């Protein structure tokens, strides 16, 4: 009886169709050869993907997004590794409070963070700068990096480190040669997840981006507010393809279910 009946299978099919429909429609419309929104019934064309390359604003926003994602994920990882090691293996006063603080950006609506950063950066003269974007993104993606590194450093075998220490390795050597390689899957997946979250963020970034320094989702959002044409479908399709690519890598390396649910595959 532990098998799905026909009604359950139909429900499942409809549910998956509901989830996939808008994504597939965007990808289909992106390949239209026409100058207006339509499905590519006369065969696919790359016309609108080429048009992205001719739009310097989208190209620059795309480059800025990639750089922003890479820089802020790297900083987030660098901050999260020592914090995760402290939380995972030390009992100390304020440990729970520190962990709650590091995870708190998950609880604050991004619209509130956007407003808070806009106010803060305008006051200290970082308004509309790339530095401001990096700093704010580090805050919102750090919880994702921290969770994965925390899980990796909690599960690892400590006796190898103790062996390294007893054989005379310094703390730094032991970290570099023993600890880091052991938690590397968590660190790498944390970096990718942080990158995806930075790359996709729009609600907070729309407040702190300036016309000169902006991200691709923000540029896309502002464009869609004015008009919807095949160009935005092509940009969206590009974003979807990139995410699916990153997702497949993550699924191979770490397991998507483990990544999102936070437990093993079995």
């Amino acid at each position: 009886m532990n098998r799905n009946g026909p009604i359950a299978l139909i429900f499942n099919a409809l549910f998956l169709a509901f989830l996939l429909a808008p994504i597939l429609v965007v990808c289909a419309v992106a390949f239209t050869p026409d100058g207006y929104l339509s499905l590519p019934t006369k065969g696919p064309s790359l016309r609108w993907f080429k048009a992205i390359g001719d739009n310097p604003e989208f190209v620059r926003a795309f480059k800025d997004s990639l750089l922003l994602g890479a820089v802020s994920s790297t900083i987030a990882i660098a901050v999260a590794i020592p914090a995760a090691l402290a939380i995972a293996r030390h009992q100390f006063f304020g440990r729970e409070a520190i962990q709650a603080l590091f995870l708190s950006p998950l609880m604050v609506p991004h619209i509130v963070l956007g407003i808070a950063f806009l106010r803060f950066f305008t006051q200290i003269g970082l308004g509309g700068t790339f530095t401001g974007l990096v700093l704010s993104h580090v805050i919102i993606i750090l919880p994702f990096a921290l969770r994965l590194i925390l899980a990796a450093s909690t599960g690892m075998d400590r006796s190898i480190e103790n062996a390294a220490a007893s054989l005379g390795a310094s703390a730094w050597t032991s970290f570099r040669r023993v600890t880091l390689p052991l938690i590397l899957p968590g660190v790498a997946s944390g970096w990718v997840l942080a990158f995806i979250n930075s790359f996709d963020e729009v609600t907070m970034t729309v407040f702190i981006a300036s016309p000169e320094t902006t991200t691709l989702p923000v540029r896309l959002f502002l464009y869609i507010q004015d008009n919807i044409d095949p160009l935005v479908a092509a940009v969206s399709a590009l974003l979807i393809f990139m995410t699916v690519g990153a997702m497949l890598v993550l699924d191979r390396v770490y397991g998507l279910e483990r990544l999102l649910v936070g437990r093993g595959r079995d």
Partner: protein
Amino acid sequence: MKGGMTMAASTDATTSTTTDAAPSAPPPVRTGAGWSWTPYLLSLPGLALFAVLLLVPLLMTALLSLNSFSFYGGIQDVWRFDNYAEILADSYFHEVFLRTFRIAALVTLLCALLGAPQAYILRRMKAPWRGLCLLIVLGPLLISVVSRTLGWALLLGSTGLVNQGLMALGLVAEPIEFMYTETGVVIALTHVLVPFMVLSVWASLQRLDPQVENAALSLGAGPSTVLRRIVLPQIVPGILSGSIIVFALAASAFATPAIIGGRRLKVAATLAYDEFLNTLNWPLGATVAILLLLANIVIIVGCNRLVERRYKQVFE
């Protein structure tokens, strides 16, 4: 915001196994035994970053909400609760907040009705299908909200596929107006947030031993009795904590209501955005933001407490 509150349970497991010596310290010093600076030094970069870049900006926003604004003079340095009084008194703001919570409640209900059965169906699937379906369900979480909402704008337009399909089937004579309506926003937001519900129910189903179901069946219970008496009580906490996540995210959603709802159908988040970037009344925008933050904290912390107390035995 992704996966917001599910981590509370998974990180609790880290509290054990931390009593032995810190490997990063020189061997003779055993940090488990006495006071040590090591954990504080390790978390110092993060603490400094969060103090300056999270607590200070939020505090400044709270202070900004007490300032006043005049069209010619800009932001005035006064410290009063005038903006809060204005929002409490003005029926326009009532309407916006009411609409926000109405949409959030509907989205939560739909997510529970769709997500909980889907999680149960997923769990009963066999190996290759289960992984594939789970990938399709969870994958959209990682795709940009703007892309996903654009898909709905394409589907729901007056000449979109949904209306074309409905008219071809003869179900409606004229295209239904989805764009710039609450119905459209609810559909698109349900799509954006339902994976969180599946995740949450899925996590609670992991604790359910399939043998218990088999035992009930072998003792003569019908499938519907098993569902009602065995499965449902186990997944109710999952549905409730999923509902908290979905409601909080729906109430503060921005990009989807902005694109599907347009400029006229305002919710709290798009209202704050307009006050900041169009009207330039920053103090009022900050007030809306602070109210949204407070509502969020009350819902998340308050409901989590309630759920955990009511279903204590399930969480242990």
